[in-house]
């Protein structure tokens, strides 16, 4: 994949912002999110970091309503997604989601993975959908593998197809939940490169990651969560290199220590 082809294929991104106020979420008696406030400006890249079980995935999943918040409001683009009358499916078209486990559709080729929602949801013609899909597969450097099925692709390739699939819906916001945590180390770089390009093109991105190098280089802001609250947030460089809170320091010391084995959930 070369930088020039990927940015040439990109079109103007219309980016949406996110505004989260006093978000609370419980599973039974277990309060997982304890009042989260978070603003993401259009075009901004925010990395969410924090120990396993701190509620990062839950927060991300609340933004596109895979989980239903108990309290609080979330605005995404022009939608108040916590409004009970909101058209969830319409809201979700604006929000791309990339999962740790890729979740590609195994019975469809890479191309079909990228076209199915276009034709069924956006009612694009098969030809138009294929054009868009190929453009986005080129954007992630995989147009030559369009006819492969997921089980014929490496983990890193699958994750890049998953990104292309989300991009094919022309989202205004992208959510990434530990997109590289399930990957072999040698394929992590390709996925991060795709995300870096996307950030450059002006996409709003909310990224849960343990890749501190990526966070420091690409993120505009880093948010550290622990125990269902935001403990510290600020400019990427500041939070990662000069954290002020003891819990942030402790977490970063463990993540950045090369001899420490982080057990991903």
């Amino acid at each position, binding site marked *: 994949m070369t930088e020039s082809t990927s940015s040439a294929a990109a079109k103007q991104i219309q980016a949406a912002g996110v505004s989260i106020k006093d978000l609370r979420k419980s599973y039974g008696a277990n309060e997982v999110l304890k009042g989260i406030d978070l603003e993401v400006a259009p075009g901004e890249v925010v990395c969410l970091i924090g120990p396993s079980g701190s509620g990062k995935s839950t927060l991300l999943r609340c933004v*596109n309503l*895979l989980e239903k918040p108990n309290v609080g409001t979330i605005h995404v683009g022009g939608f108040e997604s916590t409004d009970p009358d909101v058209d969830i*499916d*319409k809201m*979700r*078209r604006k*929000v*791309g*989601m990339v*999962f740790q*486990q890729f*979740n*590609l*559709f*195994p*019975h469809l080729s890479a191309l079909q993975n990228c076209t*199915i*929602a276009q034709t*069924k*949801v*956006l009612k694009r013609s098969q030809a138009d959908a294929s054009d868009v899909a190929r453009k986005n597969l080129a954007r992630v450097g995989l147009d030559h593998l369009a006819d492969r099925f997921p*089980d014929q692709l490496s983990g890193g390739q699958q994750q890049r197809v*998953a990104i292309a*699939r*989300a991009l094919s*819906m022309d989202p205004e916001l992208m959510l990434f939940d530990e997109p590289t945590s399930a990957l072999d180390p040698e394929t992590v770089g390709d996925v991060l490169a795709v995300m870096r390009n996307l950030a450059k093109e002006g996409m709003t991105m909310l990224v849960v990651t343990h890749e501190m190098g990526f966070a420091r280089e690409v993120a505009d802001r880093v948010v550290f969560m622990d125990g269902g609250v935001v403990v510290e947030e600020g400019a990427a460089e500041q939070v990662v290199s000069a954290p002020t809170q003891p819990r942030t320091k402790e977490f970063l010391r463990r993540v950045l220590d090369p001899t420490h084995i982080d057990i991903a959930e």
Partner: protein
Amino acid sequence: MAMTVRQRARVSRSVQYGLLALAVVLFILFADWASIGKAFFNWDSAVKQFPEIITLALKNTLIYTALSFVVGLSGGLLLALMKLSSVAVWRWIATLYIEFFRGVPALLVFIAFGFGIPTAFGVRFDIYVTVMLALGMVAAAYIAETLRAGLQAVPKGQLEAARSLGMPHWRAMVSIVIPQAFKIVLPPLTNEVILLTKDSSLVYLLGLAASQYELTKFGRDGITQPNAGLTPLVIAGACYLIITVPLGILARRFESRTAKTKG
């Protein structure tokens, strides 16, 4: 001298083969082959079964099976989706249905559809419709449980990924979850077809016109002919095997394929 484990296993196996061979030899020596032949393998009687046993009886068995499978599959899918519904009433209805039709003999359902319901409601079903409903509704109960297991075996992330792309629930089910579930349940579903093929013999209860005979009825009719012996039933049985053995092989093929993609 004590035997090793391997030696002991070999001796044990030889003894088993020996006993089996002895039984076969005794049977061959002492069986009354003349009367066995007359009863089961009468050439003249066999020839008389053809070609109708294929062009009529086998064909009708296939038609009855196919018709009831269509009803069983669509009904089963509907019931499986009801069983997984978030609306409790649907779940109750589906459970009730499944428990009922799995719990009563298919024969009773046939009698109900063949005689009970027509008398009670003053309706008259075509024979094909009766078979379709009676056999199909029983099949639906079994297939529903198979499909439910298949739907639940599709990872939750598939539905979430589809919903995240803006697909409504039903669309995500139709385009993403159900196709994958079908792949998973292909082997057990093939076994359902085998069971259905055999259960289609129950139509004999309904009183068939000659053109509606299927394999079992055709065979039973055949043995009433003078000197036919039981040969017509043997041929009918062989015809069932022509259908069911390839289906069994197919099911095993599907099974090993799913096992491979999983591993």
